[in-house]
């Protein structure tokens, strides 16, 4: 598999879906090519570029991600457990199982699938001081710390608002849904999962002047007529063909 494909495979599906950006752009924004062979026929196409990236809290196309993955920075390999079926989406109600906020429930505000992380709104926070000196008391900033999806967080069953294990099962209609193992109630995928960088939901997207509206895009302007494209153009342009072609024969 080509390296470019491998690189883009490292960026998770949910991240790509949230970005609403073409995959080629994400790859272009991420890649760091240090040297390329000249474009001449005697050279084979070879590139020297970064292959191992550190995925943190920042998205792969941001400047902070680039700063974390600057040239020359080598970090220890982060081992991420591969999860076959991802069950945590933005807007899900979730209970924190570790830390100071153990037992509290919150809503997921960010999903970082590359590290199996989930950031819950207002919970598992870290209070950091910036610029504290003798005269200045410093600025305190509270930021949510990511939680591991595998063992630090549990989805909440909406029927009794208590945490439970979740399974993916099929309904009678054939739809794949999350089901709480304890109660058997379906845990629906929240509306917040539809959110991308450009819109919260497709229906609430703010249209700009360059967007074709639904009424214009779905309008049927085709009128069936017994004419070929050429005949249609001839009629429009007023071209009249009176010449009759000579008879030809096939033997």
């Amino acid at each position, binding site marked *: 598999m080509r390296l470019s494909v491998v690189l883009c495979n490292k960026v998770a599906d949910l991240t790509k879906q949230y970005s609403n950006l073409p995959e080629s752009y994400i790859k272009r924004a991420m890649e760091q090519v240090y040297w390329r062979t000249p474009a001449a026929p005697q050279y084979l196409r070879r590139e020297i570029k970064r292959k191992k990236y550190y995925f943190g809290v920042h998205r792969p196309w941001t400047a902070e991600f680039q700063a974390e993955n600057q040239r020359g920075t080598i970090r220890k390999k982060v081992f991420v457990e591969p999860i076959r079926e991802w069950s945590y989406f933005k807007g899900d109600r979730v209970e924190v199982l570790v830390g100071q906020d153990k037992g509290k429930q919150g809503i997921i505000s960010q999903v970082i699938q590359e590290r199996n992380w989930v950031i819950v709104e207002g919970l598992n926070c870290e209070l950091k001081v910036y610029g504290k000196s003798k005269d200045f008391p410093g600025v305190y900033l509270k930021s949510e710390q990511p939680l591991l999806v595998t063992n630090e967080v549990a989805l909440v069953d909406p029927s009794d608002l208590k945490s439970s294990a979740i399974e993916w099962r099929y309904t009678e209609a054939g739809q794949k849904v999350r089901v709480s193992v304890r109660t058997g109630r379906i845990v629906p995928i929240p509306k917040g999962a539809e959110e991308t960088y450009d819109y919260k939901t497709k229906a609430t997207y703010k249209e700009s002047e360059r967007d074709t509206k639904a009424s214009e895009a779905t309008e049927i302007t085709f009128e069936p007529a017994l004419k070929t494209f050429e*005949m249609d153009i001839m009629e429009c342009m007023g071209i009249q063909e009176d010449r009759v072609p000579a008879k030809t024969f096939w033997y």
Partner: protein
Amino acid sequence: MAVSRITLQHCRCISTSVACCGKRNFRKFLIYNKRGTKLFREKQTTKDRDPELFHDLGVKPVGYGIGETFVEVPEMIPELIVPDLTGFKLKPYVSYRVPEVVQSEFTPKDLFDAVYSDKIVNDFKNGKLGENGEPLEPSPKEQLTPEEAYVQARKTGTDIF
């Protein structure tokens, strides 16, 4: 019997030819503008360069030259015909609110239904169909004979080649 003696003289040789036999390795070095003498290459940067060396840079001509003069032919100038877009409603981008449009295939049967079906149904209701089902008041399209259709098919403005 005479005995012939053969003496061998070992001598060391000096090669006067160059080791690389005139082949210079430019495989891994991209050296540009290595053709021509130094004088020639210097002259190329001045006004005295040969005007005929790059006489054609690939631009399509708009006429032809007779000796020194150039005759412009207006027919050779490309004319871009751009459609008039006043009142055109479609914009460059499509809003996310637009639902997915799924259109079924437009088959020849659909075309037949669109063109002929109305008249046939009306004729049937009003009893204007003959014994074999042919229309008693045919429209111009229904009056087309096979010979006429054949001639029309071979005129300009047909799809049948």
